[in-house]
């Protein structure tokens, strides 16, 4: 699970993107800042998504079909590897099956699609069934069918969107080389009144659901690699403790409550260990325990704040974290036994590291010119760990914090405070295609992308 061979292309792509910065920087010097380009480093495949054909007269068909069509279109657009033909440029037809599609029509101007997704959606007796196809429009292709899939579920809008996510992930994996992220979740904190609770939503911002009802301040949700539990920190009478929510049981499960300002739990990628910050000695330090909270061992011993640990998910042999040992917080890396400490950032105010699934990059929040009187704006950066070379992903758009990598290493979700409102956004790992996922109704912060 940790390393699958098809992962490499995505990593290479981002590498290319980072490397391409060097080459293109001089050509872009007239701009306000260095733009990172329009894709993740390779030519995007031009793909069209036909509106699916309604395969039944049932009155539910219309609403479920529009939920499906919209979700599939957005998933392909968000994937970061396609040039998706705009809905206004596709042929005004709804082919429901391979017999009904005229491939040259999709290949021709103005759609110019290299690939086309199409199919039929039908509702009958409360049951939803979808047949989806992906065809190559290249003339003379002996077998143009790339995918043919059939899905069934109960006839609800949520199920219709989920089937679209599954079909999109099939297309993305087939054409992009790594599994898509359309079925992943984002855990986050939502504040209403004085309280903050843990919530979850689909990766595209739909299907928001409240998990905890503790009536206090809960922060820093981190989902376990197997999607069974969410660890977070919560303010109780004795201060901050780690709490554990079981997604299988739909309730909190027991976990040692230390108090002592115990913060920011993070899972190792094998799900066997947690790293966190605790001030049981009177000074916040990084600890590691097993997944049940026992066997805690202290890794750091420096005066000053140490918080926000995150494991290298590739090896679980290193931990990145934030330390204030030299005053303003900086990002550091150490071995997971506390040895070989290395400082990664060279100044400013650097917090909230997230380690890419490939193991090669850190995303974090950084304000390079922070100081007394500064407005406190901060941006998301990505650093190549081996070279410590970094690039800035967000620019001139509020205060950005808490980046979290998607499992495909192509996307980053983060929080953005703009005009007094904090919402959750996602973008490609080169900073492009920024999309707002949450919209009002409180403050939405500290997103954490599920592992699968």
């Amino acid at each position, binding site marked *: 699970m940790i390393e699958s061979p098809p992962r490499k292309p995505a990593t290479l792509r981002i590498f290319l993107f980072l490397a391409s*910065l*060097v080459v293109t*920087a*001089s050509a872009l*010097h007239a701009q*306000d*800042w*260095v733009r990172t380009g329009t894709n993740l480093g390779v030519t995007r495949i031009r793909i069209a998504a036909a509106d699916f054909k309604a395969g039944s007269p049932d009155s539910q068909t219309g609403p479920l079909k529009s939920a499906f069509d919209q979700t599939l279109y957005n998933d392909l657009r968000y994937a970061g590897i396609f040039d998706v033909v705009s809905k206004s440029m596709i042929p005004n037809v709804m082919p429901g099956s391979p017999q009904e599609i005229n491939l040259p029509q999709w290949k021709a101007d103005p759609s110019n699609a290299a690939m086309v997704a199409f199919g039929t959606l039908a509702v009958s007796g409360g049951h939803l069934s979808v047949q989806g196809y992906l065809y190559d429009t290249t003339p003379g292709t002996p077998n143009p069918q790339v995918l043919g899939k059939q899905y069934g579920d109960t006839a609800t809008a949520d199920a219709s969107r989920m089937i679209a996510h599954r079909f999109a992930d099939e297309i993305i994996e087939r054409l992009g080389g790594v599994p898509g992220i359309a079925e992943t979740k984002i855990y986050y904190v939502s504040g209403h009144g004085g309280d903050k609770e843990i919530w979850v939503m689909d990766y595209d911002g739909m299907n928001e659901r409240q998990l905890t009802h503790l009536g206090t*301040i809960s*922060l820093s949700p981190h989902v376990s690699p197997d999607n069974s539990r969410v660890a977070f920190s919560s*303010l109780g009478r*004795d*201060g*901050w403790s780690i709490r554990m929510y079981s997604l299988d049981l739909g309730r909190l499960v027991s976990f040692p409550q230390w108090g002592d*300002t115990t*913060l*920011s739990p993070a899972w190792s990628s094998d799900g066997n260990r947690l790293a966190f*910050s605790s*001030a049981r000695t*009177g*000074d*916040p330090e990084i600890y590691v325990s097993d997944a049940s909270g026992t066997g805690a061992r202290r890794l750091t011993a420096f005066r*000053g*704040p140490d*918080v*926000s640990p995150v494991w290298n998910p590739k090896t679980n042999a290193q931990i990145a974290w*934030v330390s*204030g040992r030299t*005053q303003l*917080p900086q990002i550091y890396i150490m071995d997971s036994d506390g040895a070989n400490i290395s400082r990664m950032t*060279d*100044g*400013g*105010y650097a*917090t*909230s590291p997230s380690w890419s699934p490939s193991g090669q990059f850190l995303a974090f*929040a950084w304000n*390079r*010119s*922070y*100081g*007394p*009187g*500064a*407005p*406190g*704006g*901060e941006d998301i950066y990505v650093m190549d760990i081996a*070279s*410590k*070379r*970094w*690039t*800035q992903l967000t*620019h*001139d758009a509020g205060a950005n*914090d*808490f980046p979290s990598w998607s499992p495909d290493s192509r996307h980053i979700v983060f929080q953005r405070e703009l005009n007094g409102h904090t919402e959750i956004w996602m973008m490609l790992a080169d900073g492009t295609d920024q999309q707002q996922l949450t919209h009002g109704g409180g403050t939405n*912060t*500290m997103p954490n992308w599920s592992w699968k």
Partner: protein
Amino acid sequence: MEYSKRTSLVAAAGLAVLLTLAGCHKKKEAPPPPAAPAETAPAPQATINANPTTIAPGESSVLTWKTTDATNVSIVGLGQVASSGTQTVQPTQTTSYHLIAQGDGGTADATATVTVATAAAPTPPPTESGIDENAFEQNVKPVFFDYDSYDIRPDAQTTIQADANFLNQHTELKVVIGGYCDERGSTEYNLALGENRANAAKQALVTAGISPDRLRTVSYGKEKQFCTDHTEACWQQNRRAQFTLDQ
């Protein structure tokens, strides 16, 4: 706007790095990270003193302050003031006057403390019970911290001593020390910093003779604020260790 000016400086620095990288990209090792953009404006300077520094209740003291290279000068509790000046103050209790000078070249601050001699002031007998939260907060004052710091300032030592005196007279009281941070910076880091602030205040009280068994710390980071304006005066109010009755 200061923000966009700053960010374009950052952008310029980023561009400079990339150009540097472009110039020597064949080298095996990455070049060292860049220095922060050079500040052209001189850094502000600030001094403040009080005369006399100790007064009896009802008496007054004169504050005199001077700043250079500052565009925005304020004294916490008094608000915006001229770049240099004097002002007569008549505090009813020991008060620290925190001068903040902000300019294009950065920020400077200085503090003067006027101690109000309270030897003659009536203090409740140690046996008295029923100290309520209100009476407690009037006698056990919060201590304030510098930006991104959890060191007890010299002016806070006076406060700590007065707090310890009261707690030594009321040995039945237990105390929660809350650590607070201003709204800037990151949530998790501020929770850790708030814990360091609360613990610094706890250690100062322990040094002043209070048993650690009577003291417990809770960090509120930037989750709870005393003041919600986006000004340095307000941020200073929020960078504190606050004492409340542990009930």
